[in-house]
């Protein structure tokens, strides 16, 4: 049994009507926010708490949150913005949806605190286009919070003005990239921007903007309520706190599990009901399909933490964990992923636009057993040609799965190469 299961963002998993204000208040909700509004603490102290808690961005890149917040210039002229990235599009990832559905108030409270800390005026919660129920829940929660005077102009009678809006996206993967999301909010195509300048300097409408993941922001009220030490103590030395994993694939009980970082993969697999009878774990994608894959045997001796995943050459990413057992057709699995990426490439920059289609065509051929000699080397070379040459990290998202699959499963992929000699001999 794992201690501290579902204690931070997913703590209302089994609480009835947890998305409503009365239930949230009953569980101590908005206490931190009310205290902040009342006592107006020094934002620097709050950033210090977040830094000490070890909280890192839960969207994929794992950038230390406190550090990111400290980049924002409170005194920059003009409006400043917070964007909550709820465009959860990474294949295999479905944990933010649970926060948005079961715990929208904690997210709102997190956004309010973040806005206070960084001196931001408006927060946008950008939900992915397919999130109908989460959007509904967020909208009703926001209306409740607004009616209670927690959001909007002169919050709780103070001089604080923080506006929050929920925005439903139009359905694309790339809008989850922070600068693409900024473009989309400005009413343009979701094209990632070239960085620098970074959003903290030149973001939404050219103004300083901070973009945080849903889980990151929703963790903030609990950290401030329970203390930095409590949170960091939940995890390991280098990976503070808890992380939600959405486990899917060949497991008996797929679902979302919020576990302390540093929990062993084996325990997480057990939580998800384990593998089917008589099966072995062939390969695991630990953090969404954009991360490098890890062979099952290596995973089984690993712990779920930033450093643990780094040790096996991958990353915790978004926490979208996909387990594949020994029945998996590796070429088919790769082809499915590459089909997704070629479909979702925004088409803005050359390597990704042209490379994603090429990679997809090659992997599809391998999956059908129609590969040609040299295809795997070519595939590897193309992936390397894309990597590091694109505007956004999408290039790596195509490249990493390809190169890691080839690295670990080259023999399985070679099965897909049709032997031209033999087919000629037949005729």
């Amino acid at each position: 049994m794992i201690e501290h299961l579902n204690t931070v963002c997913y703590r209302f998993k089994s609480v009835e009507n947890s998305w409503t204000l009365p239930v949230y208040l009953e569980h101590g909700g908005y206490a931190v926010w009310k205290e902040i509004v009342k006592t107006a603490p020094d934002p620097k102290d709050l950033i210090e708490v977040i830094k000490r808690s070890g909280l890192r961005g839960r969207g994929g890149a794992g950038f230390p949150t406190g550090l990111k917040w400290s980049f924002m210039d409170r005194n920059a002229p003009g409006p400043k913005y917070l964007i909550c990235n709820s465009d959860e599009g990474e294949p295999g990832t479905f944990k933010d949806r649970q926060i948005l559905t079961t715990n929208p108030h904690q997210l709102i409270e997190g956004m309010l605190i973040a806005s206070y800390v960084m001196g931001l005026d408006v927060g946008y919660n950008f939900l992915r286009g397919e999130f109908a129920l989460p959007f509904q829940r967020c909208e009703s929660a926001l209306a409740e919070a607004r009616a209670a005077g927690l959001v909007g102009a002169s919050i709780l009678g103070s001089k604080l003005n923080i506006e929050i809006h929920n925005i439903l996206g139009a359905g694309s993967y790339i809008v989850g990239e922070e600068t693409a999301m900024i473009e989309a909010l400005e009413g343009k195509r979701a094209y990632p921007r070239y960085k620098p300048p970074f959003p903290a300097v030149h973001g939404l409408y050219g103004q300083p903007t901070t973009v945080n993941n849903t889980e990151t922001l929703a963790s903030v009220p609990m950290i401030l309520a329970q203390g930095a030490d409590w949170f960091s103590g939940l995890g390991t030395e280098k990976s503070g706190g808890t992380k939600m994993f959405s486990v899917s694939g060949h497991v008996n009980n797929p679902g979302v599990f919020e576990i302390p970082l540093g929990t062993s993969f084996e325990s997480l697999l057990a939580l998800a009901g384990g593998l089917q009878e008589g099966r072995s774990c062939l390969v695991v994608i630990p953090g969404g399909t954009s991360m490098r894959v890890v062979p099952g045997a290596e995973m089984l001796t690993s712990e779920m933490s930033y450093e643990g995943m780094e040790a096996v050459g991958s990353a915790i990413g978004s926490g979208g964990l996909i387990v594949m057992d020994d029945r998996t057709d590796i070429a088919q699995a790769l082809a499915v992923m590459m089909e997704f990426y070629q479909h979702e490439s925004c088409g803005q920059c050359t390597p990704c636009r042209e490379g994603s289609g090429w990679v997809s065509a090659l992997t599809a051929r391998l999956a059908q057993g129609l590969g040609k000699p040299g295809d795997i080397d070519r595939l590897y070379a193309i992936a390397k040609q894309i990597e590091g040459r694109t505007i956004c990290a999408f290039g790596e998202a195509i490249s990493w799965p390809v190169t890691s699959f080839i690295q670990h499963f080259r023999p399985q992929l070679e099965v897909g190469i049709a032997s031209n000699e033999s087919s000629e001999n037949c005729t």
Partner: protein
Amino acid sequence: MSAAVNIKIDNQSIQCQSGQSIIEVADQAGIYIPRFCYHPKLSIAANCRMCLVEVQQAPKPLPACATPVSEGMVVYTRSRKALQAQQDIMSFLLINHPLDCPICDQGGECDLQDLAMAYGRSRGEFEEHKRAVEDEHLGPLVSTEMTRCIHCTRCVRFGEEIAGMPELGVMSRGGRAYIGTYLGKGLHSELSGNVIDVCPVGALTAKPSRFKGRSWTFKQHAQLARHDCVGSHVYCHVQSHYTDAAHTVMRVLPRAQEDLNEVWLSDRDRFSYEALQHQRLTQPQIKEGGQWKVVPWNVALDVITDRLSGIIQTAGADQIAGCIAPSATVEEGFLFQDWLRSLGVRNIDCRMREADVSHDLNVGLGPRLACTLPEIETHDRILLLEAFPRRHQPMLNHRIRKAAQSGAAVLSWGSRLQDANYTIAFNETLPISTWAEHMATLVKALLQLKDDQVYQTLSAALEPLEVTPTIQTLATTLLDHQTPPMILIGETMLQHPDATQIIAWAECLAGLLSTQLSWVTSGANTAGLWLSGCVPHRAPGAVPLPKEDIGLGTLESFKAQLKAYIIHDVMPDLDVMGSRQALEALNQSAFNVYVSPFESSAARDWADVILPCAAGYETSGTLVNATGTWQTVASALAAPGEAKPAWKIYAALAAWHHTETQLKFDEVTAVAQAVEHAVQSAKAQNKHDQAVLVPEAIQVTPPTLWGVAYWHDLREDTLVRAAPALQLQAGEDVAYARCNTLTATTFALNETTYVQVKQGEGQARFKLKIDESIANHTVQIPMTEPVSASLGLCTGPIEVEACA
């Protein structure tokens, strides 16, 4: 503030400014970095990735176009790492691009082709199906072959950032992304042809010249655009190989000139070269017994000399008038008037559309701009009075747009709303008949806001006028800055029958705002022709003539029904205000000469001698633009058949008449020098000083129904009318009379029936379009429709009724 920064590119130490990108600095230092999406006049997209370079200490190659320089930066553009990245990008660009340069119109001048030679690998590895993209019909000017597109989005950014009309966009995404209009209605920007230039590949090419020749067989000539008073610089490409098209203009491209057209060109200037191949007159002809007969040049010149001498002997030289198109060169204008004035003819004019020229002596050197084009951008308020530069002077409008984008308030007041491609701060209409009254009221509003000793004396004359809130707003805006605003007056104002009064009040307005009036004129060389003596009241050098030597203006000379008319490159049925008066005069006169590059069926009726002359780029000559810049170019090609440059024709006619064997000028360059010298000496003797127009008291009269004569920008002159692709681009829209709903309701007009316009004794029937941009009590009349030839002064009172 930008600070000096020291960087190293390819081991070369360079000092540059912070804020510059690596590619800018490299370009200045002559180090070439390959690129497709980067364009110095467009925003940075960094999407092609071709300019990836190695920057020391950066983990990944960085795009040179989007990476700002920083102190101590060390850049390698051709290191192993940089070249590897560039070659990888090239291989991606080529996988879906057709590798069939020999059948592509861009072949030989294609960025992708050139860079593929340098960075492409010799063997392709792509064995999948290539992408194919459906072509879109973008209209008669731009041809598409979208399979060749490399998605650099230069055309998209051009539309958004320069044309101010985002007509092209990226549809779909990933490998399926393509460029299109979505609505499928084609391109309609007046600058649309520039997408051809910015496109680095053969996806967008020029439709009129497509597949007609290869760039390496063209000879390039520096020339000038002939349609507006900007005088954009162009390159004229002439086929030099011995093909069927030998010695014809194959296409026209912009020639970079930062002070005029930057690197752009309007569609009219780009595509009007086609006219050189169409409707041309190639042989001198005389009319004998109602039949046209081709004759040698000497016979034609004999006929003209004899007939004009006869008229001078029997009726006097005052029975002769000369009308010259405002697009004629300084040399043509000078020799035209020199020949006629040597005959004693005083009635010489280059202004075809002005109804009231009694202000003549008050516009010194002629109508022109008070500042240069780049200076337009520095104004913080620009007032457009009856000026619609977007279609008529597109490159001038480009400057106004840039001013507006950097925060200038553009204020427009005219007989129709401004169809602007930028945010416009004040956009109001007024009935065209009330211009003088409105101009005076604006002066009154300013006088109420600003104490001014000089103009306070006008108060009595302004007594009956009432300042409306609209005018009050305008006056307040004009006064709310310390810097003087720019006041631009359009050519339509000079066509107004009350022009003198309007100008007088406009001068007061300018005086009150401590600024000078700027005028735009029709034609490419109105300014130059004023200086060449092609106005009835000024000799070459714009020297005022003594009263007894002042002749009649164009309209007056037609009204006077003289005995002979010499018409140069003007079609009186289409180009003249008062075409009815013109045609009546030409039909009753004894002898008319039509000198033109272009055939005209109307001229076949009224002319007695037709002389074919060179057109546009076929002429060497000088044009003076609205900023007063003299620009001389050499002809790019010979005129077809026996057509001669017009300056030679008039030089010959003068010699013929005076039976001299020596031409006064046999070198075209000497003519412009003579004129320029005359201008300088007149200036030295203060002969350009102008008298001050004194405005008269205004009678307030309720607005009445007036027409406003409208020359569509793609029908405006003989050259553009003969250019087929531009005529297709003009479409059917040009044929409509237009008025707003109020006017239509008042006169029971609708779009399903026709509108009968009566002007004086003439009448004409037009299709009607209800257009809310037109002012009340105003009907816009398309002067370039053949039926409108029967109408007189269309800017003036008219009557309308619905008819079947």
